[in-house]
């Protein structure tokens, strides 16, 4: 699977409070409504501007803070096909893979807002078409890649009846 995508650029330390603000706590049981506010406190119009298939490109420690999986869920619901960051906070990283949203650790300095980027989650190859720069993401641990391939943790368990580590 190769993704062709436009990059939306964010900085370091994008917290889950910026992604899914606490003032919309009451919308957590209505994810499509909550998705209208995705990343609102980092970029007020992001939800309106983002198109299906686009990718988020961020600095270090993306998704720090609260365990709210809604953050990963609404990024996916907004149409985002992958998140690329220099590093991820632990819980967000697990959440993203668990719901089938590719999260790849890569040096994102060479990707700028609006760049056209090709991403292949399986191999971790990233190619910035706009600037003709090839990048290599850190490979996902094998088990996490398996989860992603199965469509997330729930699908993995439904398919195998248990964790299938090999």
């Amino acid at each position, binding site marked *: 699977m190769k993704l062709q995508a436009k990059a939306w650029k964010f900085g370091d*330390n994008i*917290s889950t*409070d*910026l992604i899914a*603000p*606490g*003032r919309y*706590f*009451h*919308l*957590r*049981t*209505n994810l499509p409504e909550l998705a209208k506010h995705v990343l609102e*406190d980092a970029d007020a119009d992001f939800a309106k501007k983002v198109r299906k298939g686009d990718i988020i490109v961020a600095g*270090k*420690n993306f998704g*720090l*803070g*609260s*365990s*709210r*999986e*809604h953050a*990963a*869920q609404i990024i996916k619901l907004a149409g985002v096909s992958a998140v690329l960051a220099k*590093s991820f*906070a*632990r*819980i967000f990283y*697990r*959440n993203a893979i*668990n*719901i089938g949203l590719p999260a790849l650790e890569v040096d994102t300095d060479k990707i700028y807002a609006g760049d056209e980027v090709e991403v292949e989650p399986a191999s971790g190859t990233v190619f910035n078409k706009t600037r003709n720069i090839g990048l290599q993401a850190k490979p996902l*641990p094998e*088990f996490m890649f398996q989860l992603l391939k199965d469509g*997330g*943790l*729930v699908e993995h*368990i*439904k398919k195998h009846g*248990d*964790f299938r*580590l090999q």
Partner: protein
Amino acid sequence: MGKTISEKILSAHSLPSGRWRTCQLPIGIGVDAYAGDIVVAKIDVAMIQDGTGPLTIQEFQKLGKSKVFNSSRTVLFLDHAAPSPRKELSNAHLILRQFASQTGSKLCEVGSGVCHQILAEDYVNPGEILIGADSHTCTAGALGAFATGMGSTDVAVGIALGKTWFKVPQTFRVDVEGKLEKGVYSKDLILHFIGGIGSDGATYKALEFAGEAIEKMGMAERFTLTNMSVEAGAKAGLIATDAKTEKFLKHQGRCKMFMVVKPDEDAIYEKKINIDASDVVPLVAAPHSVDNVKAVEEVKDTKIDQVFIGTCTNGRLEDLQIAAKILKGKKKHPNTRLIVAPASHAIYLQALKKGVIEILVNAGAMIFPPGCAACVGVHGGILGDGEVCLSTQNRNFKGRMGNPEAEIYLSSPATAAVSAIKGEITDPREALK
């Protein structure tokens, strides 16, 4: 090869064949799991709360399961929006109540308190594994338990199967020698640590706190340390058990659950960090990140519109007593609102019996019901545009308390109490002389 606390607990709960133990075994009997290994481990306790619970239940139902792994150790909390300020959240509460009645899981109703405090009071024992759909689940690590926060889907699978997968974390050993100065608390110590290492400095790692200063601390102060481990990115924050852990469990009617949990002397640590307690001064985390740590001295005179004393970080009896000692016979500043929320119903009752609540109310405090209260920006205590709050909570991210146009500083209960009197950020050491 020696093991860290995390390696010991995860080893004792895992079997490589995918089977796992079903009864209590002494730590050390199981497989030998070391940092970097991926294991499937049995869990002892699982928890969800009203913010993450509805999604957990939805994912649980997708698995086609109707039974939870252990109904007496699956715990549901109504604490983030308690009492509910609006119908959508009241309906979210109904989802959790219905799940509790269908599965027999434990439900901690509105007013019981913050999940992490109640888990420590009533549910989690040394040597156990707790997973929770809340990032501050790491709080219970002060009991010598491996406790970690996860997302809703992970916890849904944990509740269904009674196990989860872990990458055994590397451990940073944090030795704190010497004595904290009067007016300096474990909150200042953990802010000192996070300010040094950064908000991602311990990502994926377990922290083990040890040393003279930790040994001297009571359980309340230890919980503050482990609670905020996640603010450095850590997966877990752990403290070896000792006589204080045993006393705490005895007080909670669980003395039989005490067990010695400590690292081997030849355990391998990825990093050893030494802190001299006497170097720690009263600190705040300034807006908008927890690692933006400054000495109170640097930000003194900053005007504050609201002070909040409470939460899973610093809403325990000892914290309220520290605040009451400072506020006794005094009044909060007329331009500063003072909100206090005991972390649990039990703490509230003790604070009432000891006269702590009366002192706080006389000083002008509003007492909120036990729960997350103003920390999460869901109900009471939401800040106005440009307003500044000094809080004893663990996070000050933009928007955290419900308004991205407001500013949040984090401090110890003593700094918060002194500052409430002056209406500006103030060093507590003067007041305590």
